[in-house]
């Protein structure tokens, strides 16, 4: 998965309340067995949950950061967010789809939009007065 993010110029940063020491040992003893060469991005230590609190994902009862995912554009603007409670994992393919959609919108300067269910290569909407009332002609759900 990670090479795909690199190709898309996306820097991944992971965050949990574990210390750098725990990150190191987890990477070395377990993750390196799943990912060749170990984890290829910085693993942030948020011991006191300070980052989690600011991003609205810190669970003070459990003392952990729950699954929050924030896509931040090159200007520092949060374009997408997803927050899940711990027992359900994310779908990386959906994240990649959203990255591609937001990158397309940015590349077109907002002239094109990605409708519901958009996947790379499918029809975008050309935003403008001509589209008003005519979405049905170009977009079939």
């Amino acid at each position, binding site marked *: 998965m990670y090479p795909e993010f690199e190709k898309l110029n*996306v820097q991944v940063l992971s965050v949990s309340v574990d210390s750098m020491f725990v990150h190191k040992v987890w990477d070395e003893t377990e993750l390196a067995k799943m990912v060749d060469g170990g984890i290829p991005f910085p693993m942030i230590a948020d011991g006191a949950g300070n980052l989690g609190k*600011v991003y609205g994902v810190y669970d003070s009862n459990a003392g952990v950061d729950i699954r929050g995912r924030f896509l931040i554009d090159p200007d520092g*603007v949060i374009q997408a967010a997803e927050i899940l409670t711990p027992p359900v994992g994310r779908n990386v393919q959906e994240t990649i789809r959203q990255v591609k959609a937001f990158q397309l919108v940015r590349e077109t300067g907002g002239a094109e939009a990605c409708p519901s269910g958009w996947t790379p290569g499918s029809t975008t909407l050309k935003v403008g007065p001509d589209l008003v009332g005519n979405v049905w002609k170009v977009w079939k759900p």
Partner: protein
Amino acid sequence: MGEKKAVGCARPTGAVVGEQPKKDSSGTPEEREVEEMGITVGGKAPDFEAPAYFKGEFTSVKLADYLGKWVLLCFYPGDFTFV
């Protein structure tokens, strides 16, 4: 990638990326209570500096250093867990 220096603990800078924290009377950023800035989708991300482990090294990460790139910031409950 971050410099090889230790950061005491993860802390928000108190500003969004690319901006300086507002000066106020409540002391240095270290002393200041963590402000509950909150986030807005469509708004600037709160900046932070934090210690990190990266490829065998202990380093530090500042979100603003990644301006110009897309960033995927992923929180998760804990190392050595199952999901």
